[in-house]
């Protein structure tokens, strides 16, 4: 295991039951992967055979480890969740909330523009409602 190992107590002298247990657990693992039945059966036998050959005393961990290697060769890596980055700036501009500026600049400008719009709009008053 890269980085760390977690040690679990398990019996080492259970050739018969250990074999059955490893088979059951690996079958479940492959079932969860939803692989086609034939593929799953083949992978199961391969992993178990490799484990029996290399680490007969620790059949389940060895079989799981062998299965991981086989799956890494067989299964595609899941796709990335996001596309390639294309960064662009989005920087907040400070908001000028000065009352003085509002009174001296914004308010007169608004009054002037509104009056202008209102006067020119009045000439086209039939458009008012539709």
């Amino acid at each position, binding site marked *: *295991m*890269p*980085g*760390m190992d*977690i040690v*679990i107590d398990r*019996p080492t002298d259970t050739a018969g*039951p250990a074999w*059955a*247990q490893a088979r*059951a*657990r690996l079958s*479940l*693992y492959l*079932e*969860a992967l*939803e692989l086609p039945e034939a593929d799953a059966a083949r992978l199961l036998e391969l992993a178990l055979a490799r484990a029996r050959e290399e680490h007969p005393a620790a059949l*389940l*961990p060895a079989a*799981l*480890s062998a299965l*991981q290697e086989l*799956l890494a060769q067989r*299964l595609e890596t*899941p*796709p*990335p*969740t*996001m*596309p390639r*980055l*294309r*960064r*662009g*700036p*989005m*920087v*907040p*501009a*400070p*908001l*000028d*909330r*000065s009352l003085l*500026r*509002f009174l001296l*600049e*914004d308010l007169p400008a*608004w009054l002037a523009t*509104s009056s202008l*719009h*209102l006067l020119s*709009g*009045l000439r*086209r*008053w039939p*458009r*008012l*409602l*539709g």
Partner: protein
Amino acid sequence: MSGMRKAFKHQPWNQVAALRRSLFLVLILIPTFITSGYMAAILPHKGGTLLELAIVVVFAALFAWISIGFWTAMLGFYTLIRRFDRFAIARPRPADRKPLKPRARTAILIPICNEDVAEVFARIRVTYESLKATGELERFAFFILSDSANPDCWIEEEAAWARLREKTGYADIHYRRRRNNIKRKSGNVADFCRRWGRDFRYMVVFDADSIMTGPTLVRMVQIMERRRDVGILQTAPACVNRETLLARVQQFANRLYGPMFAAGLHFWQLGDAQFWGHNAIIRIRPFMEHCALPRLPGRPPLGGDILSHDFVEAALMRRAGYGVWLAFDLGGSYEEVPPTLLDELKRDRRWCQGNMQHVRLLFTHGLFPAHRALFLNGAMAYVSALLWFLFLTLSTAEALVEALATPTYFGPEKALFPDWPVWHPQWALTLLASTAVILFLPKLFAIALVAIQQRAHEFGGLRRLAASVLAEVVFSTLLAPVRMLFHSKFVFVTLLGGQIGWGSQNRSDAATTWGDAWRFHGGGSLLAVLWGAVVYVVNPSFFWWLSPILAALVLAVPVSVFSSQVRAGRAARRLGLFLTPEEIAPPPELRALRQQLAASRRSGDLFSACPGFVRAVVDPRVHRLHLAQLGAIRQLNPTLAQRRRELAERALLEGPQGLADRDKRELLGDPGALHALHLAVWQLPDGEPARRWGLPGLADSA
């Protein structure tokens, strides 16, 4: 200001908007002035005391506030009855029939935060299928942007995303989870813009409960392509899908009165409309250039991050010269309402704080006056509750003073005749009637509109429609004082500096328990009993004026519980009450949503019943998927590596329930530790420890 602003400054609609808004203002101010004078005349001292003056001022503010709603509805009625408005932005044009250009790429953003994963992805699937049917799918990409902190949600979202991609075979469905949800939804959207915004011309922002149909999405892009001066195009979503009584009443009100109000808003707002934060399309480039939100100086609740970002973004977009329009007549846009009164109030508490912050932006340089007015309007949505409460308190004080104080018939100045405090109940009744007209006439106009448009069958027929409106009036009369009390409290707490959490919204039909209802409404009910008792003892005639409000507060607990029940909602439906067009004839997208949800609940792989964190550890498919998203295993410093090892060992020993959410997130973020845990769990020999992880123990399976 930018060049764009100059180019778009003098649009034909500007002059018409000035005229329409002037008319709107006159329609509000003149009746307010008249009725306030009338109110003063009704009072015993004709508004001559400080208390009465305060009553008149508060009354004027409240009357102006309800008049805004009234005239918006009336102008909406006018617009809809004419079936024409030259400025209606969604009015079909021949140019809109062309297929979308390849460069008109649109990102559909679905920001989520600890939501029901199955529901969210079912809605996305429905939108996807509808879009696919238009033949324009390739112009759109989906981005599910998660801020979920719940580790189970995180993994379930990832798994659901992978399943969705697998089932649709569409590569342009993406998923991203932020580790730090800075600035919440607005920060999430801004993060998207910074990373991928340059790849798209537009983005359609969804809420977790949004559904939009393909034709509507395509139509919105067509409109934006035709109108280069539009920065934001907002749709008016229809409320659908909930089954509790309260939600069904809200859905009914939304579907019956909503179109009229939306048309009315369009009438006077034109290109200065609101952005409601979702079910809207946004032109990305100006959004990135001009709509980034700064932090407000000072501490929350009124300082810090801007919470209700949408209004501010609309104001900034408009300041940059781009129009913000409401496509009031564009269908195919849906959302859901909170299922219970308590959920609605929780949401309102967040919105209240957000809208109150806007008052601080009132004098921001360069904003258009209409958006300043919208800031005020947004704050008034909650401040009006406090004003109503104040009005009731002041009126009660007046009634008590009049009953207890000895009248002064002759003041300090010499006078021939005494000053009689006179109270004319019939005048008060006239004023009450005129207020009732303002409040309820739009409802009658809505019925008339539906009848004229021959759409009564969409609401179950004219008789059922009328009965539903009557029931809705009773219901809203019962709820209005409860909302008033809560909103007053929210405003008060916000002004005093109290902070509000910003959690995810409950979107399931879960009923309110009696305990919860009592906890939230009990205080209000007790206040009403006390208030009523004092007024009844001191001034019994005034008690009857207050009684409808006090009765509603006293009944708040049972009303809150009853209205939160799905059973009550369904019973009303059987009686033909509160029927909506979507309930009577669900559009294909809503039918598909039900099927999707049923299918997603049925489909069960080996570990689908396990919580997300357990699936990431145990389920080999989900585990592989999650590791792929995390990337390569990183070299950790020894202290951190040791901590992770200990965490994994604890998880193995105690099972997933032995870990806090923070621990789970830590493990989920470390591919090395997670994979080690994965292998270790699959080797667990004992029955019980294995079962904790959703595995049958080896002893069972052997």
